[in-house]
Every structure is written in structure tokens, then in C-alpha cells.
């Protein structure tokens, strides 16, 4: 199993405060990996640093290449893509333009195929393609953010809290789509507070607490881990109420 993304001994600091400490992580080809943890554990910070938005010390390799020195734009060119927590859409531009810009770096012919693929994944976006991104509902904006990222045909899609602030029925829709991405050959690194949903679709999981990984393993094992169940899944196994 070759690692598509390999992060080794990563530290990320805001001034003197270390938000992420000695974190190592791997995502393989065609794998869905999730990082779960409470608010403020450092999950978003880690994703942003992998993308190059925040400075990181340690090692980040993608598709066998060291990308630590690369700017955000050049990391995008290697096939790494981030759907950030705040989505960062182009609010005063329409859906189609947002998607077209997602394919800014790739050839026109490839972009045409990307359009088809994204519209198949999210038929809603096709209906709304002339609407301004800023006027879409929360769920549609999330779909657009994911669609825009997919337009660039990434090898790995990093999703930061895709379910944040969305109605349960839309969350189910988004998670179903994440599952479909694997079939399309896209690996996913998913950061979620909705641990239950995340663990259901993921192959492997990391549990983050106060800037460090305290647990990792196959998602099914993590889901049945007593400590995780108590802290993140909102219920305790009988007889294990004290940990």
C-alpha cells in the first residue's frame, strides 16, 4: 500500500501556542480516512497546514513528492484539494463560474468532462447553475464547494466539517456523495465532529485531542472503542460508563 499523503511529525503553532503536536498521518490511494475530535482539538489547523495555508514544521509528502516548500497554488497543481470549513466560495459569481474556476489549472477538454461529473454527482447544482453562489442554501453551498474542488480533478480531497450547520437529510446526502467519490478514484481525508457518520463511511480513523492523535486504526474498531464511544458518539457501552 503506497501512501498518497504522508505527514510525519507535524507541528503547527500560532505564535507560541502549539495547536498541533507531533502528528503523523497517512492516506493511501482510494482510501477514506477521517479525523474525529472535539471542537478546538486542532483538526482544522492540521488540514489548513497540510494545504499550505498555515506554516507547518515536519514533513508533508504527496504522491511521493515533498510538498512542504510549495505554495498553496502549487500544492493544488499536484492533485491535493481542500474544501475549507468556511467554503470560501465566490459569492457574487454564479454557480457555473465558480465551477469553471475550479478547473482553472486544467485543460479545457478535461474541464468539460469535470463539469459532467460534478453535475452528475450534484444534480442540484445543474438546476442552479445561473444562480449566484452567495444566494444558495447552506447545503447547496457545501455541494458547490465540493464540486468546485472536484473540478480540478484532485487525487485527494480534504473536507473540513462538510456537515457543519446542515439539516440531517442534507448531511446524509453529502456523506453518500463522499462514499461515491471513492468509486471515482478520489481519496478523501475527512475532518468531522459528526463522528458517527464519519466513522460509518471511513476506512480508517484518527482520534485527535488537544493537538495530538491519541488513537488510530480501522474505522470499525475506533467506532467500538469505549473511550471514543463515550466522548464522541454520545453514548456509553453498558458496564463501561467509567473510563
Amino acid at each position, binding site marked *: 500500500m503506497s501512501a498518497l499523503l504522508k505527514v510525519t511529525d507535524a507541528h503547527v503553532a500560532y505564535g507560541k501556542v502549539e495547536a498541533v503536536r507531533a502528528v503523523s498521518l497517512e492516506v493511501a490511494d482510494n482510501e477514506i480516512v477521517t479525523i474525529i475530535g472535539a471542537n478546538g482539538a486542532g483538526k482544522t489547523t492540521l488540514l489548513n497546514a497540510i*494545504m499550505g*495555508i498555515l506554516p507547518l514544521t515536519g514533513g508533508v509528502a504527496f504522491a511521493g513528492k515533498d510538498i512542504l*516548500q510549495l*505554495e*498553496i*497554488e502549487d500544492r*493544488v*497543481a499536484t492533485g491535493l*484539494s*481542500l474544501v*475549507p470549513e468556511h*467554503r*470560501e*466560495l*465566490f*459569492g*457574487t*459569481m454564479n454557480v457555473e*463560474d465558480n465551477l*469553471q*474556476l*475550479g478547473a*482553472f*489549472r486544467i485543460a479545457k477538454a478535461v474541464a468539460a468532462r469535470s463539469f459532467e461529473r460534478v453535475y452528475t454527482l450534484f444534480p442540484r447544482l445543474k438546476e442552479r447553475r445561473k444562480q449566484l453562489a452567495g444566494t444558495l442554501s447552506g447545503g447547496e453551498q457545501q455541494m458547490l464547494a465540493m464540486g*468546485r*474542488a472536484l*473540478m*480540478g480533478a484532485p487525487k485527494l480531497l480534504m473536507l473540513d466539517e462538510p456537515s457543519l450547520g446542515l439539516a440531517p437529510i442534507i448531511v446524509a446526502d453529502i456523506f453518500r456523495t463522499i462514499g461515491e467519490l471513492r468509486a471515482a478514484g478520489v481519496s478523501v481525508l475527512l475532518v468531522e465532529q459528526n463522528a458517527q457518520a464519519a466513522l460509518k463511511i471511513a476506512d480508517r480513523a484518527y482520534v485527535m485531542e488537544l493537538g495530538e492523535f491519541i488513537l488510530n486504526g480501522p474505522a470499525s474498531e475506533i467506532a467500538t472503542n469505549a473511550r471514543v464511544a463515550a466522548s464522541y458518539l454520545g453514548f456509553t457501552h453498558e458496564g463501561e460508563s467509567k473510563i
Partner: protein
Amino acid sequence: MNTTIMLFLVQDGITNGAIYALLGLALVLVFAVTRVILIPQGEFVTFGALTYATLSAGNMPGTAQLAVAMGVVAFGLDLFGGRRSLHLRLVARAFAINILLPVAIYALTYWFAGKNTPIAVNIALSLLIVAAIGLFLYRLVFQPLAHTSVLVLLIASVGAHLALQGLGLVFFGAEGQRGPTISDAAFMVGPLRFTGQSIAVYAITIAFIVGLWLFFGLTLYGKALRATAVNRLGARLVGIRTTLSGQIAFLLASVIGALSGILIVPITTLYYDTGFLIGLKGFIAAIIGGLVSYPLTAVAALVVGTVEAFSSFYASNFKEVIVFTLILPVLVLRSLAAPEVEEEKD
């Protein structure tokens, strides 16, 4: 007041206003994309105008040398910036843009200068020279500061303005110059006399605004520029380089500035430092447009031009005072209307 005079003043105001509109649009564009308040916009105007006037007089303008010199420094910066991963393609690209381009422009200018060249060639050469200066100004001054605050960028902008104005004095001297008109034709509509030059001002302004509108609405690079203005992080996340957007914005701004200068230098005598005041009026229009709205800026520019025309008729000593006073009620209204002070994100 009689109607004829009023019509004259309105006509004069609209001609000036059209120029301010172009400059205001350039300011809004540059600010939206790079957060730079482009004080040196006025220098683009004077450089364009006086380069054109110098070429028309059959001399070699100093701005062509400036473009080459700035290119050499930019080449050095590019090599230094990419020193970790110097490969042939990067060096070749930097060489082509920073050395070959300005040298080619210089050679062309040298070739044509002194001969009895047609006006169109002189205009094209002036635009090319100032465009190169605008491009390198971004590379030398603003690209290295791209991550700093609006205030730092503003201070750099003032510095660039002073430096370019000083160079303008060196190149063109302290005397004012005029350039030849694009067209000497004139015709009367009722009491109003329309000169070919004023028609050229309207036509080129409208053509440029339509052109910009098409560029931003239809082309991928135009959309990328808008995207950078709307959401810088979002743009970077889809792989749009902030530096590329900055370069395009500065290129457009310098061409617009130079073109404005070329359009007015047959009408008014321009000195090496006149551009600042002209740019400032475009700036007022841009401020009235809140530094975001293109249509509002264009309308405000026409108002600024008209107010200027009327005040130069009734109280010519206070002409500038009255024009710049326009900004006060706008600022008061804007500060009252603004719901809260937005924190600067980056």
C-alpha cells in the same frame, strides 16, 4: 446663466469625467485584487502622456530606459526568489518577461524615434512602455509586500508615487508639454462644437468600459481576477496565483492610465507632476463608489468632472477645493451607513 454656457460646461465636464471614470475604474480594480490604493496611477497618466508627446516631437523618451532598468532588477528578484529550484524553464521565462520584453520595446522605440512616425505607432509605443513599467512596478514594489496590511501597501504606494514623479522630472523636465491631437476634425451640433479629440475620448472610454466588462464577464482570466477580488483564499485554493492576478490588474491599470494621459495631452498642457491631481480625482470617484462598485464609480466620475467644470467657471481659484470637498459628505454618509467596522482579515 445662459443655456449655451451651461451646455459648454456640461460638455467639458463629461469629457473630463470620462477620463476620471477610466482612472477610477482602474483604482477600484487594483484595490479589489491587490488591496493596493494605487497612488502612482497619476504617474501612469503623465508617463503615458509625456512619452507620447516626446515621441511625437521626434525624441527618445527616458521611460523606455526606465522599463529596461526595472526589468533587470525584476529579473534579479525572480532569480533570487526561485533560487531553491532554479531550472531552465523558470530562468528562460523570467528572462523572456523581464529582459527580452523591455529590450524589445526599447529597440522598437529606438527604431521609430526621430522618424516621422504615424500617431498610431507613437500611441502604441507609449502604451507598451508604460504597460511594462506598470508590470515591473508590481513585481518590484508590491509583490514582495503582498502579505502585508493595507496600510503598509499604502505607504509603499506613496513611496512609488514619489519615486516615479521624481523620475518624471528627470525624463521630461519641468516644462509642460502638449501632444498632437488624434483627430483635427470638428463639427457643430446646435451651439456645441464637438472636436475629433473629444469624440475620441468618449469613444475610447466607452470601448474600454465595454471591453473590461466583456473581459470580466466572459474570459477565464477575467473571472479569475474577479474571483481573487471576491475571495482571495478561495482563489488560491483553486490554484489561481495571487501574483498572476496582481500582474494583470497592474497591467490593466497602467494601460488605462497611459491611455487617459494620451487622450488629454492634446487638450491640456501636462507637467511631470500633473498626473497626481488627475489621478486624485479618479480616486475621489473610486471612494464615492466605496472602492468596490464599478458603475457607481463611473457615475461619480462624471459628477466630479461636471462639478469641476462648473467650479472652474464660477470660482476658478477654488476649483480643486470644491472638487475635493465633494468627498466629505460622501465619507460622512458612508460612515453613518456602515453598520460596523469590519475587521481586516489578512
